[in-house]
């Protein structure tokens, strides 16, 4: 078999070239076995860079490509596509990371960085020589979606899917739809009536025959993978197994209970925002109210800003201030987080309405002292530089939103990660905000991070957009990194069967020869079975023991050469 490898080293502008002597690595690459061409690009990922790689494939009759640049986690698809466009099977491409793993972390050691880049390239070339062309198989997608959570995010996600013609199951733990919006009066800063908003979406949902709403239900099991999940919904009538192509997580958020803080739980006058919302819904109009923000957040232990509490505070402070002309509304805060235009406008309107704002610091938090029917809030006002005492009928604590209690369970069921606070962790904080790293599972609303209703709505729609893509496309392509068994080598010992986390392998009898068999659609390509096999009968496409062994050999060879 002819092996002609092309090696392309990227400057990445200065990102690589400032530490790695790219030309030296190119010259080194030329000395490696199987290398038919070695070159360099200023930006390999630019149209120009990709074009030059494609041209070189044709001109030099290359049959394998190694690019030494940045990380395969972001750029591999790009180069694979370029290979494909130039007529090479995309699995005959190998990526070497000399930026994140070399130039950027050895910025002040150019000589060492260059030597390391050479070794990494040698390892990549060694692997590339043993790569085999692969074909990707396709799996069908069940044209149904499951949305977990019946708060506003989930409702909107489901409504959008249904509107796009997609059969959708909505699973809600309680018997009411709308989540936290059911507990509040109006939504700030727009002032929209919360329950009407919920009602509109629910009506739209219920009008469609494609909607299946499961109230008082929870998801108890999730099997499968993108395109063919099987979601077990435990409802009033027992478990239902729903086949689905995609899943959206919209499990929402809950309010932190600030027990012990500022007399909460001790003085009945000290309540949370949600409790105030209930009072407002019942028509109560307390006149002397002190709001305290950042209770239990933005401090050691729970460092995050919960994003929505300031705006809820402003909205309620303004409502109370407007409700009675003789009201005395005070907001004790650390910073007012009214980002954007509507919120900032609300802030201005609130302060213009006579609501008084006092700023406190974390080192001198306010104190709540009981005074019969009332309470006094004693606070050091940073702006006035004096301690003031504010009497109040009601002290409202703006507390952070927390991930729901069962987010750990949901996370485990769906095999999706959570951050250190328990909020779900999206695939990429910047550019993949509503996706999980797990294909076919999406996230929206406050289960990811506390967001306001408007943000919940657009995130629900965004998750619906993402979920609709595989469903409407009707197929998913399975990356060729799955495990495969050589039945000739297989002793049918079942090590792989036991080790597989997905129960994707079974021992089958084929013409009297017992051997393991991998169900490709179930295989996720982890390679756990590979390490369980003692005879290398199981191997993972693109990560065979031969390929990885060759990388080790190449490293040893390059290092020994270096030390001589």
């Amino acid at each position: 078999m002819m092996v002609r490898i092309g090696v392309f080293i990227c400057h990445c502008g200065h990102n690589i070239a400032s530490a790695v002597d790219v030309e030296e690595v190119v010259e080194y690459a030329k000395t490696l076995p199987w290398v038919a061409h070695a070159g360099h690009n200023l930006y390999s990922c630019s149209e120009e860079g990709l074009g030059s790689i494609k041209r070189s494939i044709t001109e030099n009759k290359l049959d394998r490509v190694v690019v030494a640049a940045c990380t395969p986690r972001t750029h591999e698809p790009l180069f694979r596509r370029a290979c494909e466009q130039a007529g090479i099977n995309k699995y005959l491409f190998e990526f070497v990371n000399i930026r994140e793993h070399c130039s950027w972390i050895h910025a002040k050691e150019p000589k060492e960085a260059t030597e390391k880049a050479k070794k990494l390239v040698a390892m990549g070339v060694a692997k590339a020589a043993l790569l085999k062309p692969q074909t990707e198989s396709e799996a069908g997608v069940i044209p149904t979606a499951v949305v977990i959570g019946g708060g506003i995010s989930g409702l909107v996600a489901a409504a959008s899917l249904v509107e796009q013609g997609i059969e959708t199951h909505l699973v809600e733990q309680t018997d009411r739809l709308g989540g936290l919006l059911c507990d509040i009066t109006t939504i700030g800063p727009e002032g929209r009536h919360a329950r009407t908003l919920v009602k509109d979406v629910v009506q739209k949902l219920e009008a469609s025959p494609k909607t299946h709403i499961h109230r008082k239900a929870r998801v108890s099991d999730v099997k499968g993978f993108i395109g063919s999940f099987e979601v077990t919904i435990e409802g009033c009538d027992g478990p239902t197994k729903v086949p689905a192509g995609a899943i959206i997580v919209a499990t929402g958020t809950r309010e932190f209970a600030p027990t012990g803080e500022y007399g909460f739980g001790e003085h009945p006058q000290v309540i949370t925002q949600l409790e105030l919302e209930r009072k407002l819904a019942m028509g109560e109009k307390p006149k002397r109210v002190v709001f305290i923000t950042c209770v239990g957040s933005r401090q050691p232990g729970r460092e995050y800003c919960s994003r929505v509490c300031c705006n809820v505070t402003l909205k309620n402070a303004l409502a109370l201030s407007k409700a009675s002309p003789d009201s005395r509304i005070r907001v004790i805060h650390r910073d007012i987080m009214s980002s954007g235009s509507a919120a900032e406008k609300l802030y201005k309107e609130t302060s213009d309405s006579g609501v008084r704002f006092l700023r406190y610091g974390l080192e001198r938090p306010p104190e709540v002292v009981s005074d019969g029917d009332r309470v006094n809030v004693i606070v050091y006002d940073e702006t006035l530089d004096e301690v003031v005492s504010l009497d109040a009928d009601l002290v409202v604590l703006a507390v952070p939103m927390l991930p729901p209690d069962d987010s750990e369970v949901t996370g485990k069921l769906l095999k999706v990660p959570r951050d250190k606070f328990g909020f779900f962790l999206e695939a990429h904080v910047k550019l993949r905000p509503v996706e999980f790293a797990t294909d076919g599972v999406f996230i929206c609303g406050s289960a990811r991070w506390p967001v306001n209703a408007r943000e919940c709505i657009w995130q629900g729609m965004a998750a619906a957009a993402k979920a609709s893509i595989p469903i409407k496309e009707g197929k998913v392509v399975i990356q060729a990194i799955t495990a495969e068994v050589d039945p000739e080598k297989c002793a049918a010992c079942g090590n792989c069967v036991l080790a597989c986390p997905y129960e994707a392998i079974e021992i089958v009898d084929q013409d009297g020869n017992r051997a393991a068999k991998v169900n490709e659609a179930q295989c996720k390509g982890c390679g756990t079975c590979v390490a369980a096999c003692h005879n290398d009968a199981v191997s993972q496409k693109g990560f065979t023991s031969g390929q990885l062994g060759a990388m080790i050999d190449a490293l040893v060879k390059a290092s020994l050469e270096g030390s001589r």
Partner: protein
Amino acid sequence: MTEFKPTILAFCCNWCSYAGADLAGVNRLQMPPNVHVIRVMCSASVKPEYVFKAISQGVDGVLVLGCHIGDCHYLTGNHRTAKRIPVTKKILHDVGIDDRRVRLDWVSAAEGEKFQQVIIEFVAEIKTLGPNPQREVNM
């Protein structure tokens, strides 16, 4: 005598530790240039055979890095890693290879600094251990 520059191999799982290594890079966290990463999809696909192969061919140290227990992209893949690699180390120890030459650790996608710290510590440890005696066998 020339300075000992260890040759170290690191297996990093695609989802956590490779991403953690990427993050270390993105954050320009500086570390010694002795570690060469092989990307695998899951730490559970790291055959102890690779570790033995590397050590007996003279590689001075081998790191196996995976997702934290509970965070494995493949559910329980790393549970197997958590047991295989300690056995791998024991076997090395039994034949007189210092098992500090092999280290298993968990680095998440968000732990660029942990990655840096692991690399710095491991390289320092290998430097105190000196060259892998198998190096000479193979020269």
